[in-house]
């Protein structure tokens, strides 16, 4: 339809103006319109950095946010190496490979404090062979966020920043750095299944999105085929009307 194509041309012109001539690096789609239409370009933009946060105990343990980062990193690391920068040594490689991120293309780096994590992330995102870098840090300042953005745009690497306080404690004062998208991930009850536990589910909340609009979904991991789209959307709104699963199902 002519109207739609003109709208797309306008959108492209505006994004070219906004990026001041810096090249855009494409997007990684989620494979479902319900998420993709909220994001600019129809997917998670590569060549940019995104922040993932969690609620409650997740801020210390980083389990759901880590799982979401691993699932996102699976399609992103198809052509290149993934680097995961940790502060606390509790990432378990067999768990990552169960989520579909094989250990052959993953490099672990352990740093002592937030500044080293951010420096390592910037270094990794500037290297040509790295396609996705994941870091766990507590707070990121405005200047550091800007540097990370510039580093990603230069090479096209994607950075996923998990907000985590690995040893607990009070949250530090954070300057409002501005990632391309900010997500909040928490766990969601999965559907009962005859044999044990079904596929894991998470509640995703897109809190802020540059050039897009926020949204709320419940997603489930696709167990089979490990295709290009690791997640399947189960429901869109937060208060969904899914059939409540059987509680207290005894183990076999």
């Amino acid at each position: 339809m002519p109207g739609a194509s003109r709208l797309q041309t306008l959108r492209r012109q505006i994004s070219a103006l906004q990026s001041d001539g810096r090249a855009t690096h494409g997007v990684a789609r989620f494979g479902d319109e319900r998420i993709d239409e909220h994001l600019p370009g129809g997917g998670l933009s590569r060549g940019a950095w995104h922040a993932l946060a969690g609620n409650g105990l997740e801020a210390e343990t980083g389990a759901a946010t880590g799982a979401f980062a691993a699932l996102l990193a699976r399609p992103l690391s198809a052509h290149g190496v993934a680097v995961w920068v940790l502060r606390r040594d509790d990432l378990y490689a067999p768990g990552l490979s169960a989520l579909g991120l094989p250990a052959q293309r993953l490099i672990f780096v352990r740093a002592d404090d937030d500044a080293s994590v951010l420096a390592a992330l910037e270094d990794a995102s500037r290297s040509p062979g790295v396609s996705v870098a994941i870091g766990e840090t507590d707070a990121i300042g405005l200047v550091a966020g800007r540097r990370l953005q510039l580093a990603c745009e230069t090479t096209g690497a994607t950075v996923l920043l998990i907000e985590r306080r690995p040893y607990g404690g009070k949250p530090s004062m954070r300057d409002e750095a501005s990632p391309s998208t900010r997500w909040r991930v928490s766990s969601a009850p999965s559907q009962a299944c005859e044999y044990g536990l079904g596929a894991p589910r998470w509640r995703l909340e897109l809190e802020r999105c540059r050039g897009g609009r926020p949204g709320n979904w419940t997603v489930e991991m696709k167990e089979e085929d490990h295709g290009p789209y690791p997640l399947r959307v189960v429901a869109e709104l937060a208060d969904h009307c899914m059939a409540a699963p059987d509680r207290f199902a005894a183990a076999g």
Partner: protein
Amino acid sequence: MADRGTRRLAAVDATAQALGLFAGQKAAEAATLVPKLISAEFDAKADLISLEALADWCVRFSPAVATDAPDVLFLDITGGERLWGGEGELMRELAARLASNAIPARLAVADTPGAAWALARFDACICPPDHQASKLAPLPVAALRLNEADAAQLARLGLRTIAQVIGLPRGPLTRRFGPGVLLRLDQALGRLPQALNYRRPSSPWMQRLAFAEPVSTPDDLARVAADLCGLLCDQLQTATRGARRVVLVYHRLDGANPVVEVGLALAGCDPAALLRLLLPKLEEVDPGFGVESATIWAQEVEALKPSQAELDSTQAQAAASIGPLVDRLANRLGSDRVWRAVPVQSHAPERAVARREPLSLGQAAGWDAARPRPLRLFVRPEPIEAPAALLDAAPARFRWRGLWRRVARAEGPERIGQEWWWLAPDQTAVGAVRDYYRVEDEDGARFWLFRAGLYGGEPAPRWWLHGLF
């Protein structure tokens, strides 16, 4: 020093020797002969420390320095003598420096440590290559570094020079003295190798720069590093080799030698990359009163594999492009902070992962996909309370960090037993098993719990939380 109650002289200097004193003489006798004798207590430990310090100082001539108590230093100058313009020049410079520091020394150069020791003791000279036999022949038997019993025996038998010992048939010599005499002889003549305990392995890939005036500003130190990197990489490139470890030593005026070491994941000979890794570490170098010379040498030198463009070389390309990144991170954070995970055949989950160099070529096998494993594994499992858990079932609720959580769904048990083949027989027990359960609570959070021990076992079974999905 004291020897069975009588005090004896441990060592005498040249003037005392001229007056007729010798080592081993009774101190009382020496005092009567020379009334104005100045003597100091013999302190073996202090002597050793100063010998080590001298060895450290000698590093500027060669990285491979070995000490042989109480007063011998071996320097391996293979390949390094060209920096001074020949062995003779090196010996002259070393002798001059030692003399200017008032350290009496005798030097000799030879093919083997044994021959060098002998010549230094008795006939200081430079032995031409492969001429040890002719040079050693006129020396007395003591030059062979034998122990006292063998030396005394040889003297009693009338064998006074090495030439006589070389001429004897080997079988009867071994029968009479044991293997020691022949071992020392063969080592001196170069027929058998001798292992010395060098501070660093000797390396022919070495470059040195000496300065007319001492250098101490950080800019100058950086420029020195840049020049040395360039020289070393030229040398490596002409031989198409790359180094994996590079050591840069600054030799200060007061004898201290601050060292800067750099490691590379892939053997390389690019001076710019080396310099980028060295510069951050130069900030810790303290030049003291000034640096008079600097040496750089390469270790773990390998032939460079010529890079070849292949059609499907994604792994090789990835390795080549992230090599510099891995080097930077490893040198900045520590080489044990950057790794890749490989599977290990082990029952225990905490031992199922091993760490390897990030750029080592990949392994084929992965972990067992049928066994669910958590994303976060605690280094130490956290204790939880799980009351009223039935025999083989997961608990209906449990308490972790003070919060009660109700279990909605569970899966398990997965029994993981002991690795009995590692343990002593009395440490194994039938009941030392862990039953792992994967449970999900009402909010959807998933936990990996285990019960250590069987019901009815000796210590009551306890529940732990090992990881989070």
